[in-house]
């Protein structure tokens, strides 16, 4: 099957002040069609004020199998958290 149109990932900013968030994907022949389709598929009820799209093949993702070694080290670095530091009760505004 080769007449599949390329796949695009769609990101939408729901309102100014918030970041773009991934909402899903769709097929389109080029960015112009992808933009029109994203508007029709993902913003029919004013869900957004801005759309980003990127062809799915351009996304590099971390490998979930390495999840532990990649994200785990945070557990033994408690000194990165404010509660690690002992300070007297009477100290205020810190």
């Amino acid at each position: 099957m080769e007449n599949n149109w390329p796949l695009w990932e769609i990101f939408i900013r729901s309102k100014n002040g918030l970041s773009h968030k991934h909402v899903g994907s769709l097929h389109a022949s080029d960015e112009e069609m992808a933009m029109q389709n994203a508007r029709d598929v993902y913003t029919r009820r004013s869900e957004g004020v801005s759309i980003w799209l990127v062809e799915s093949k351009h996304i590099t993702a971390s490998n979930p199998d390495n999840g532990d070694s990649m994200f785990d080290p945070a557990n033994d670095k408690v000194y990165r958290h404010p509660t690690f530091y002992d300070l007297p009760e009477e100290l205020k505004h810190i």
Partner: protein
Amino acid sequence: MEKNLEEIFQSRIDREEKIEPKDWMPDDYRKTLIRQISQHAHSEIVGMLPEGNWITRAPTLKRKVGLMAKVQDEAGHGLYLYSAAETLGVDRDTLFEQLHSGKAKYSSIFNYPTVTWADIGAIGWLVDGAAIMNQVPLCRCSYGPYARAMVRVCKEESFHQRQGFEILLSLSQGSEEQKRMLQSAVDRWWWPSVMMFGPSDDDSPNSAKSMKWKIKRFSNDDLRQKFVDVCYEQAKVLNVTLPDPDIKWNEERGHYDFGLIDWEEFWQVIKGNGPCNKERLAARNKAWDEGAWVREAAMAHAAKRKERSNKKKVA
């Protein structure tokens, strides 16, 4: 090794962790999801046909814009769901091919005809109503992309059911003829809607597995019971009778009892012998075949534009 992975997988499910596309999953989990999500997507797409039938003949402009918006939503639902299925490694054209060749199933409800305007109301009330009952628990499905798609779908569905009920409500307040039209639409759509929840739990071999994997949260029969209980009360508002002489309140169970379902009819429609199976597939195939040149032209246009902009960069 395999065993170990499967145990880890199940314990993630038991902890209510979501499974994402690149995570390890048993082949059977993947296959079950591809089948369920794609059948669901096909149902949304084929579901546009019986309703599309009435867009040009809607009785007022208000009804027409409402119905158009609903049918457009169903197209969107199909797209969200196809995308979710594709995250499992199957491509879109393969899914279409399965639908068009008749290999894939879709909800048997869409193989019934919409003979009067009242059918559009009955579909919104009963068919979308049954779909919502099925879909709300799917928002908590263990597979992330499916669950997220269902959240979007469910947000949009409540408008569908309300517009349907309002169509029926207007008819219930109309002339004698309109009231008869309303009752006969309910007579036609009631049993097929009750069947939408699928075979009884004893005849549903995959149910237990889907429950264990938290793809499914409630049994077919439990959801069906909930549907009957809710609809019986709603029917009173419309002044219609549900075409089942055996419906009555069971104090002990705290639910309505209801009559036997004609499973023979259900399996016949699934097998392709419903009133509109051939018509629906023919319509999908026609749309796909006649759209071929558009798909090709769009790709050719994209290629040409890319070539042109590459040339400009070189120059």
